[in-house]
């Protein structure tokens, strides 16, 4: 062990202070407001116990938001990870246009959610939308993509996947490039086939990278807000609400404490999912 790289503990004092002041304290104080009647109309904030939390669980839009959030996160995680893996394998080959293709796939990742949302809103528009024009070319009728729950969830998921695929490709590609060619050479000498090479050498070695991809996709998928806000505003009705849009709605009516209460419940769900996945992936990696 290189003991020169182990710094004394007091070197942690300033980072810890900064972390506590700028993250721990604001978060804790912020979440405490979930147990008060803080809103834009009251001047003296008072403690109301679990009233707001109970209200969150009795709100009919929360189960809708929960299901939508899980669908967005699940669809994004699975599709982005799988496609990211496939495209990374292709882009890891010695193609002449490799760098150009890599850039093209990464471009959507640099667009803001607003831009992506507006692009896909236009594509999925019922009137004059490109997707409907294509659908009509095949003789089908116009589809109101953003006018009902499941088609809207589908359209938003497509936009989110398009926006995030570039990241997944880059991360997986980095993992693939870190696999030592010597392992591959040795396996080939031992007579390993292409599938055996992939299954026994490449996949186990890049599993930590894939896990990072999955975890990022899962967490950012659960935090889905911006594209929903731009493309449907949570509608029609409350059909495409997520926790993010619910929080925004409460904020907009000046019910700040209720907004924080939704945030608190959501954070707990987020932490449970992240920790559960971490445990699961640890076991997975160890088994490999």
């Amino acid at each position: 062990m290189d003991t020169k790289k182990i710094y004394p503990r007091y070197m942690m004092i300033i980072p810890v202070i900064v972390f506590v002041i700028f993250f721990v304290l604001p978060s804790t104080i912020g979440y405490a407001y979930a147990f008060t009647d803080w809103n834009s109309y009251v001047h003296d904030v008072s403690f109301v116990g679990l009233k707001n939390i109970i209200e969150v669980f009795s709100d009919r839009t929360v189960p809708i938001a929960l299901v939508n959030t899980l669908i967005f996160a699940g669809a994004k995680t699975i599709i982005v990870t799988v496609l990211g893996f496939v495209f990374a394998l292709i882009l890891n080959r010695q193609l002449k246009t490799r760098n150009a293709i890599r850039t093209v796939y990464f471009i959507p990742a640099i667009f803001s959610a607003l831009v992506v949302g507006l692009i896909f809103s236009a594509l999925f528009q019922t009137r004059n939308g490109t997707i409907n024009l294509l659908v009509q070319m095949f003789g089908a009728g116009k589809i109101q993509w953003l006018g009902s729950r499941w088609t809207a969830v589908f359209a938003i998921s497509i936009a989110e996947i398009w926006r995030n695929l570039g990241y997944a490709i880059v991360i997986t590609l980095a993992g693939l490039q870190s696999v030592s060619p010597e392992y591959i050479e040795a396996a080939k000498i031992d007579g390993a086939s292409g599938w055996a090479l992939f299954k026994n050498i490449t996949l186990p070695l890049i599993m930590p990278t894939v896990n990072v991809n999955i975890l990022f996709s899962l967490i950012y998928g659960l935090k889905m807000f911006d594209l929903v806000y731009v493309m449907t505003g949570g509608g029609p009705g409350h059909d495409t609400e997520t926790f993010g849009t619910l929080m925004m709605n409460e904020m907009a009516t000046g019910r700040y404490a209720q907004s924080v209460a939704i945030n608190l419940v959501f954070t707990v769900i987020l932490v449970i999912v992240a920790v559960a996945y971490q445990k699961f992936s640890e076991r997975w990696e160890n088994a490999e």
Partner: protein
Amino acid sequence: MKKRGKKIAALLISTALAAGMLSACSGGSGDAKKESKKTDGKSDGGVTLTLYGNADDAAKPYMKKIFQLYEEKTGNKIDVQGLDASNFESVCLTKFQTGDIPDILMHFGGYSLDAYNPAENFVDFTDAKWVDDIADTSKAQTMRDGVVYGLPFWESSVSGCFYNKKIFEEQGLKVPTTQAEFDEVCQKLLDAGIQPIYMAAADSWPLLYQFGMDPIFKDGDLLEKINSNQTTYSDIPEMTSLLEWYKTSAEKGYFGKDYSTDTWDYSSEVLGTGEAAMIFCWDTWFDTDYDSESYDYTSDDFGLMPIFMGTAEEGTYEGGNNSLLLVNKNGDKVDTATEFVNFCADPENYNEAFDGIATTPTFKGMTTNKLSSQYQGAEESIAKVGNPSIANPEIIGFSQNDGGKCIQELLVGNIDVKECLKLMDDERIKVATSQNVEGFK
């Protein structure tokens, strides 16, 4: 020694970084203070007044004109800070909550002004000279609890049902005067392959259900009861009629096939090409927003008639909604801000600002404005069945957007009329309870 030196250097760099970060945080406010002092002084070009308003509302030509006139005549400056139109209320309220209160606020008034605690925060203009000059139709909007808090200074439009006169003529249709006649007109248009009403339901606010509610709540007693939790929407039969009208109109095809994804952005196109024959809207829209140059039908091809939503047999119009100018009574520049409002209320100045602008007069002395052709064509009918804007500004907890979302749910079939009314009540009561309104506590 070398190791110790490294440690000290690291510690110094960390401390310097932290100090730099903290000083960067505080530096802004210090500069702001300096800037504020600088602009406060009259030595270098007068006082700068900060104005918060909905970005769209504050950017109207007559607003720009009055700011320009004021700046030219006084040497003072108006620093207009336009807040995001769709989140204006929440952003502005948050600013107030954190003590960030401007010298002048532009606000639509009504019950939502209560969240700003007007008695504590805004100048009482009840005894101002200009109060008597305010048109009777705008006066109620300027007050809370009998106190005048703001000067109405914006366009005053009349909302109703706008119809394509040429299409009506071609189809041999007469302007309806009853709900039954209106339904008949819709059916005839539909049979002729023309979409009767353009309803941009995807945006929720263009459902404009408050138009149908004005006749219900014009009786002050019912308004008082709903605002003290003695009755609910579910208890009012006309509210059921209103929602049933939306549901049956959508099912019959009066809103077209794509209403659930139709947005307000397409209004000009759909009306201009004659795809739809009617729209619920306000008259100044045809002057300021409708794209006459790009389509077959120009704004003059549209007439105004009452809205029929199942709540008033002879239909209804909604009177003007005006934006108010309110002055922060606790600010350092309260006198200058009050002078600005008095400047805006001067007939010479408001007549110059509204010269050629299509609006009904907000002031009795307003003479340079013009009336829209639609308004002029329907003046008699407006006088007969028109109502002031009641639901939006007066019902505590009313939200055009939240209620619109409930109607969206009704239209997509997630809920029935009864459930929709309950949902609208729940949303309204949630806000009223937050406000600790008597009867909701």
